[in-house]
């Protein structure tokens, strides 16, 4: 099949809006009578709330309401019902909302916060997941074992709310046969998404029982569900509207500020209430990412085959766990990296910690576990005296091999071997460059794989509205947050209908009352899931065109042909436009109905993993790849300069190469940042995040980027994907940190197992002569 639109680098269909300042974001919107909210947050990471006095705050002119824990419903939570929109009885992280003010403007609301008196009894707190599972650790949720949890959640008590197991083969026998065993521990610190756009939600509740909310969410339908659960409002009356959002990266998925804003709106019926977070609140009062401590042990034969792997991982998950449960799953499903491991034992624990909740962050559990795997395999290759490339090729999940959860790698699973070969060839094509006496040059690589961790029956629906001029409007519930979704979906629509790309327009606002259902825009699954729905909708639209034309020509639908924008029967011709709103007889009476294509896709055959072994068809698909890094380290400063970045990824058919390349680069860039500079620093006294601004929490800038970048594709069409496509948005995050650390080792002989590897740490290690 030759493709006309899929595979072309069309320019983004939101480009004009986004470069002229006309693209609208939630914080750009104003509503008549809009009130403003501010949140009082806990200064302690763990404390009992002894009393709250709001009397003085309420007296301030311009203050409408002040809410505290006693005024809000809960507990809620899809996986574990362990949180409230405002803390009740105790706080579990510094930054947790304790009270909220609604006032005539932000200034008054802020002033009112100063007049709320809260008495706390501070408790011992715990930040690192390793400490949270130690004997005598402070317990965050005393009543955990009595909480309502989803069927796939297995709380263990103490601070452990989830235990995910993967078992395959015979682990003891595997280690017995091993000639070499390597072990190590890694720590991927807590980091923040740093979306440039702060979270914002504006909501209005009406006494007729309807709720409207504009929000910067990746998950309007999840927010809708949450409001339904909290306030018992029928789903049909909950309108969550999402325009463009200024970066998500998972940090705006599931629910964040929306439960609280819904409560505030409920307290002042008829008025819009807006909550816009400050940059500081972004750090202390929204979801964080990573926070993974892993302890791995790998056994190998002297020929360089992996015989056994044992991993124990702990995901620090914050004061309430929300969806961190599913990150734990991701760490299990991908816990071997893209390597064949015949004997496997993985235990992943989800652990409460006194940090803001850990939620989705681009990569979703996969970078966390690729870190120990790729670092330890590098170490193993070295100890065996083998070339690290050759060693990897021996063990990678080639076609026919079996992955950690028992799935046989099929042709369309993707070709990680080819990706690795191509990266290696490019990375090592010439000797290391000489950058002078002060610069140590190193090279390293890491292979990776990632699956979307989704509900087993994840749904995507779309409508294709045929307009009277023959143009088509695609209605989708998918969010545009930078990833170029609407362009890619328009390309697939044009392909499926065989019409010019220019004839397709995509709705750029999602509205849960009228948009077709879409689970949420996460997991790099929109191209795959929504794309599949588009193909179904296009078939549906074309069938309706044929049926209508058959009535007009008085024949059977199978005799009708669609040729371009014409509907043809022998020598008789109609345009799509003639049929769009229904065909009229010469006497003016209507003959046929208006035409809209519907497509409803649901993933089939994906199962929950077995609770005891983690085995099963639990991953819908895998995107795989390999990354190589060449860098230099300044011996006098410890600074790292990235020279070359090479990445090959097999994400099936690439719908838009230019945009796909930029997605991969964007993802890699985030992890260059977390590998070299980013980490949240918690105060030892209070447990509050100290570097809660963009100066002290440094993300990479233009000057930190690699000099040469090669990002290319291996395109093995994915059977379950539209036109063979599958996810690509997150995957650049997965192997980047270990690739950089492997290169740092190559340059300096120093092994790092904790991120970030800052210039100071490198200097210290160099001076220490390690």
């Amino acid at each position: 099949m030759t493709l006309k639109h899929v595979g072309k680098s069309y320019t983004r269909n939101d480009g004009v809006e986004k470069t002229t300042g006309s693209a609208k974001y939630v914080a750009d919107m104003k509503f008549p009578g809009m009130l403003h909210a501010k949140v009082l947050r806990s200064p302690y990471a763990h404390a009992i709330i002894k009393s709250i006095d709001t009397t003085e705050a309420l007296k301030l002119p311009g203050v409408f309401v002040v809410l505290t824990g006693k005024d809000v419903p809960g507990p809620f939570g899809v996986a574990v019902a362990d949180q409230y929109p405002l803390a009740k009885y105790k706080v579990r992280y510094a930054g947790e909302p304790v009270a909220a003010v609604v006032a005539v403007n932000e200034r008054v609301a802020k002033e009112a916060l100063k007049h709320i008196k809260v008495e706390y009894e501070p408790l011992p707190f715990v930040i690192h997941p390793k400490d949270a599972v130690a004997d005598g650790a402070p317990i965050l949720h005393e009543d955990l074992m009595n909480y309502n949890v989803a069927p796939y959640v297995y709380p263990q008590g103490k601070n452990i709310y989830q235990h995910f197991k993967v078992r395959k083969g015979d682990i003891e026998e595997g280690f017995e046969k091993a000639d070499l065993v390597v072990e190590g521990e890694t720590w991927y610190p807590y980091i923040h998404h740093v979306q440039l756009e702060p979270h914002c939600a504006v909501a209005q509740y009406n006494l007729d029982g309807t709720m409207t909310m504009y929000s910067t969410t990746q998950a309007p339908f999840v927010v809708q569900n949450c409001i339904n659960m909290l306030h018992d409002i029928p789903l049909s009356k909950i309108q969550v509207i999402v325009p463009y959002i200024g970066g998500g990266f998972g940090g705006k998925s599931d629910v964040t500020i929306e439960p609280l804003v819904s409560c505030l709106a409920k307290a002042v019926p008829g008025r819009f209430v807006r909550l816009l977070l400050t940059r500081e609140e972004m750090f202390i009062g929204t979801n964080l990412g990573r926070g993974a401590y892993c302890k791995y042990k790998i056994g190998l034969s002297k020929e360089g085959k992996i015989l056994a792997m044992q991993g124990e991982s702990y995901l620090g998950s914050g004061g309430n766990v929300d969806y961190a449960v599913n990150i734990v799953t991701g760490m299990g499903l991908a816990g071997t990296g893209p390597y064949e491991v015949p004997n496997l034992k993985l235990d992943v624990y989800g652990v409460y910690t006194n940090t803001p909740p850990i939620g989705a962050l681009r990569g979703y559990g996969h970078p966390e576990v690729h870190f120990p795997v790729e670092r330890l395999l590098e170490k193993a290759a070295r100890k065996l005296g083998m070339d690290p490339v050759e060693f990897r090729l021996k063990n990678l999940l080639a076609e026919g091999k079996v992955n950690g959860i028992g799935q046989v790698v099929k042709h369309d699973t993707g070709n990680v071997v080819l990706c690795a070969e191509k990266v290696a060839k490019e990375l090592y094509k010439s000797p290391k460059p000489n950058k002078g006496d002060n610069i140590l040059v190193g090279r390293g690589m890491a292979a990776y794989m990632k699956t979307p961790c989704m509900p087993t029956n994840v749904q995507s629906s779309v409508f294709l509205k045929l307009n009277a001029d023959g143009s088509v409007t695609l209605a989708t519930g998918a969010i545009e947050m930078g990833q170029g979704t609407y362009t890619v979906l328009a390309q697939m629509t044009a392909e499926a209908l065989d019409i010019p790309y220019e004839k397709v327009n995509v709705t750029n606002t999602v509205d849960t009352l009228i948009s077709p259902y879409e689970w949420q825009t996460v997991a790099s699954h929109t191209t795959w899931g929504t794309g599949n729905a588009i193909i179904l909708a296009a078939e549906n639209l074309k069938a309706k065109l044929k049926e209508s034309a058959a009535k007009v020509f008085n024949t059977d639908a199978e005799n009708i042909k669609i040729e371009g924008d014409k509907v043809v029967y022998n020598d008789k011709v109609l345009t799509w436009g003639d049929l769009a709103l229904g065909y009229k007889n010469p006497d003016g009476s209507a003959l046929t109905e208006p035409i809209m294509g519907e497509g409803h896709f649901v993933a089939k055959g994906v199962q929950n993993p077995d609770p005891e072994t983690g085995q099963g068809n639990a991953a819908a698909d895998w995107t795989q790849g390999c990354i190589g890094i060449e860098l230099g380290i300044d011996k006098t400063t410890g600074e790292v300069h990235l020279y070359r970045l090479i990445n090959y990824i097999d994400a099936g058919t690439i719908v838009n190469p230019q945009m796909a390349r930029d997605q991969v680069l964007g993802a890699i860039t985030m992890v260059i940042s977390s590998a070299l500079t980013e980490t949240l620093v918690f105060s030892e006294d209070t447990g509050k995040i100290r570097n809660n601004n963009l100066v002290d929490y440094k993300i990479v800038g233009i000057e930190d980027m690699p000099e040469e970048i090669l990002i290319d594709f291996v395109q093995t069409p994915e059977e379950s994907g539209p036109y063979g496509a599958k996810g690509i948005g997150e995957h650049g995050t997965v192997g980047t940190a270990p690739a950089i650390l492997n290169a740092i080792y190559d340059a300096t002989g120093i092994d790092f197992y904790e991120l970030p590897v800052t210039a100071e740490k490198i200097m210290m290690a160099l001076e220490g002569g390690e």
Partner: protein
Amino acid sequence: MKHSIKIRINGQWYLGDVETGMTLLQFIRDEAGLTGTKAGCENGECGACTVLMDGKPVRSCIILAVEADGSEILTVEGLREGDKLHPLQQSFIETGAAQCGFCTPGMLIAGKALLDKNSNPSKEEIMEALGGHLCRCTGYKSISKSVEIAIDKIK
């Protein structure tokens, strides 16, 4: 205390009675209703709010509206001439340099400030001009490339 000020934005005068503490960014977004300029940190750290003030790039979140009284401001909305997009806008679209679009207005203005004073900047000069402007989406390469393409377009 309120101050009566007037600021010319994109060629149009906007009058306002503003509190001392109001920032230029707030004046642009809330008083003039020009929401193209974005607030990423309101603390001078991200560059999203950059506008030209009397021809120079400034972070409008750390300038008071009263300080800008009488000045000439250019925001992202003022870049195009009528229906014709500025070469930088065209090149940003061509390369896909606007992903989520939130840093974009600041990047465009920084690029414009550079090209106004130097019609043929080197790669280093481009990097310097965009330094300190944070983007979490793109990895920056498409943005610097857009500025390079715009140089040729302007020639």
